């Protein structure tokens, strides 16, 4: 039996809601409780969960549309290809009156989607708490009405900061871990101007068998942003090493691959295997120019504008051809890039330029099992395959037709390749 996803009635006075995002692809497997839809109502974004298991089959209402409570928005079916008449199903479901559902608790959902805004109002309780923990209110996203920062928002930040990990010199990084405690460790290093969410499609898969830790480097997200002219790749490698108490697998993309490479060269004993996705070894002119544009737009405009500008550099034409996919991707990417401040961008830019090309000659010294994943249509790091040939014993695959953001564009291919490499059994 197909399952309808309807616009819920959250409380007595709600009349209508806006569809904001369908986070899943059509055809994706859905378990009861998975977030299947994001809506907005009365200034709050709320995640709607699937009420049963199935496959995400059909979307009736696109993001941006405002519909009354009870409107059928999408359908799940038992199997990806089971018999399904979309219009008939919708017609049959539309007679069902919307019933009130449990409202998500205040702030819990909204805090995840809001971005900090300098000068936002804050409640007295929030101010006091922030003061007592020496926190800057400008760095806290407000989930209250009019973007007001509430005590819950500050508490959430305190909780998150409590989870920060020291990497030496008083620096603490946000490096959340997931997956079984007993699993082998996998360290994830994201690219320039992004954070661990770049691995959103990889983490759930890897975390089934591995203890996965994503690293938000200096200046990214909740991690400390120490004052310095440059964030050095070598220092970042030291930070990453400090997070590894035992030898583990290291996976990096773009700038993160540069850091992973540095880590493997300096601390080979820590690295059981190395995976370099669209790696940066030498910053080509186009990459240098894109980074300059990235910094300029981040300085002068909004995260949405920045994301819109980055899209053509990160994704393939085939991916970009789907308009609603572009819009969805811009929204998600905007939230990611908003988590890296302008100062941090400049410092990483300087770090990249200082390091660029410096390790080309040392590639032949990499002594850990290495996999290079190249994207076939990568405009920013086009010479990834060459990296593989320079590293002794390295394997490589090319994901045909994918852009620089291959992890997002072709997640299954990337996941399969990584899993294969991690389990290949060859240890250092």
């Amino acid at each position, binding site marked *: 039996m197909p399952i309808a996803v309807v616009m819920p009635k*959250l*409380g*007595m*006075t709600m009349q209508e809601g806006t569809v904001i995002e369908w986070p899943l692809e059509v055809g994706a497997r859905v378990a009861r409780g998975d977030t299947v839809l994001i809506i907005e109502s*009365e200034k709050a974004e709320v995640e709607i969960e699937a009420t049963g298991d199935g496959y995400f089959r059909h979307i009736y209402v696109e993001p941006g549309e405002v519909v009354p409570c009870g409107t059928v928005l999408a359908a799940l079916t038992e199997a990806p290809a089971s018999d399904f008449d979309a219009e008939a199903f919708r017609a049959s479901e539309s007679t069902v009156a919307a019933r*009130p559902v*449990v*409202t*998500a*608790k*205040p702030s819990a959902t909204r805090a995840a989607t809001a971005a900090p805004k300098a000068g936002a109002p804050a*409640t*007295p*309780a*929030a*101010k*006091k708490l922030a003061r007592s923990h020496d926190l800057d209110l400008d760095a806290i996203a407000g989930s*209250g*009405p009019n973007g*007001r920062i*509430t*005590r*819950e928002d500050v508490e959430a930040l305190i909780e998150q900061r409590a989870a920060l990990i020291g990497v030496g010199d008083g620096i603490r990084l946000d490096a959340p871990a997931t997956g079984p405690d007993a699993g082998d460790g996998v360290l994830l290093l994201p690219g320039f101007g992004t954070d661990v969410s770049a691995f959103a499609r990889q983490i759930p898969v890897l975390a089934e068998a591995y203890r996965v830790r994503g690293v938000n480097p200096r200046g990214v997200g909740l991690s400390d942003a120490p004052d310095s002219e440059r964030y050095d790749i070598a220092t970042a490698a030291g930070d990453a090493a400090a997070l590894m108490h035992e030898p583990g697998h290291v996976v990096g993309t773009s700038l993160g691959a540069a850091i992973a490479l540095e880590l493997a060269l300096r601390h080979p004993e820590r690295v059981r295997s190395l995976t370099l996705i669209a790696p940066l070894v030498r910053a080509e002119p186009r990459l240098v120019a894109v980074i300059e544009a990235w910094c300029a737009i981040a300085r002068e405009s909004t995260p949405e504008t920045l994301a819109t500008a980055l899209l053509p550099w990160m994704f393939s034409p085939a991916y970009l051809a789907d308009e609603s996919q572009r819009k969805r991707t811009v929204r998600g990417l905007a939230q990611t890039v908003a988590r890296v401040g302008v100062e941090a961008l400049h410092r990483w830019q300087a770090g990249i330029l200082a390091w660029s090309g410096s390790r080309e000659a040392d590639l032949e010294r990499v002594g850990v099992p290495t996999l290079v994943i190249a994207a076939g249509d990568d405009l920013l790091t086009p010479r990834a395959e060459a990296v593989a040939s320079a590293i002794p014993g390295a394997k490589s695959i090319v994901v045909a037709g994918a852009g620089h953001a291959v992890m997002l564009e072709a997640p299954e291919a990337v996941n399969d390749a990584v899993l294969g490499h991690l389990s290949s059994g060859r240890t250092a």
Partner: protein
Amino acid sequence: MSRKLSFAAAINEALHIAMQADPDIIVMGEDVAGGGGRADQGIEDAWGGIMGVTRGLIKAFGPERVRDTPISETAILGAAVGAAATGLRPVAELMFMDFIGVSLDPLLNQAAKLRYMFGGKVRVPLTVRTSMGAGARAAAQHSQTLYGMTASIPGLKTVCPSNPADAKGLLLASIRDDNPVIFCEQKTLMFSQGEVPEGDYEIPLGQAATVREGSDVSLVGVGRTVHTAIEAATALAAEGVSAEVIDLRSLSPLDEDAILATLEKTGRLVVVDEATPRCGIASDVAALCVDRGFDFLNAPVKRVTAPHSPVPFSPVLEDAFVPSPARVIDAVRELL
């Protein structure tokens, strides 16, 4: 041991208990017995007050102690003050709180101030029972909620119970308090039922009660609005919002500690008051929160009150006048 009694019956029981124990307690007011002087026709005690609250008292305690008065609010309250100052413990009835307009002086300038002006050398152990509040279609001059006025007068105390058990205990405490106490009886609560303990017990003045525990928002009510708040809290619970409900019970003295404690607990407070909005209890509570609970505030303090108008007659209008659970819920939503 307890049994179900109406609000009115609980007050009647309190009066019986008090008058039995203390011969100085007298009851005086318009029609508190009814049929005055017609005992021989068997119709003395015809009314027992407009809500029947004082029925049976004249039979138990006699016409000297249970007095039907002329329609002379100034003389009723003034004589009650004079009697209280000279050894009696009168329970006077101001039939409708609206009539305080006719007779404010005995309360404002006499009862409230004699002790102070006389350097502490007199006490005025007077209780004024009075019927107040909207909802009975009694229209503008018989439906007002004026406890904010009396609560603002130094020297007076003002209480307003929300349920029969509290009504009995608070009235016994009020009568035995050596200060002038205004005891408010919300009209629409008079026939509400509740478990009432037997025997003699008092509920201290100046002490609020937590009638429902919660963690997300505090709803502060008094009298009828306690029930409004509870209804709202129940509906909010179905939406996953946990509301705490505080019954003030006493407006002067006000349990400031209870208000600040619940604010500290939840950080969000809505005060529900059926009085009109200017210069009233709702503003008093809100000011207290901002003044002494500033760092606890995680949202503005919301006041849900009647509108700034007289009480309308038409049932549709009166029902819109009185704060409703829906309005309380809307206020809560603004805070989350």
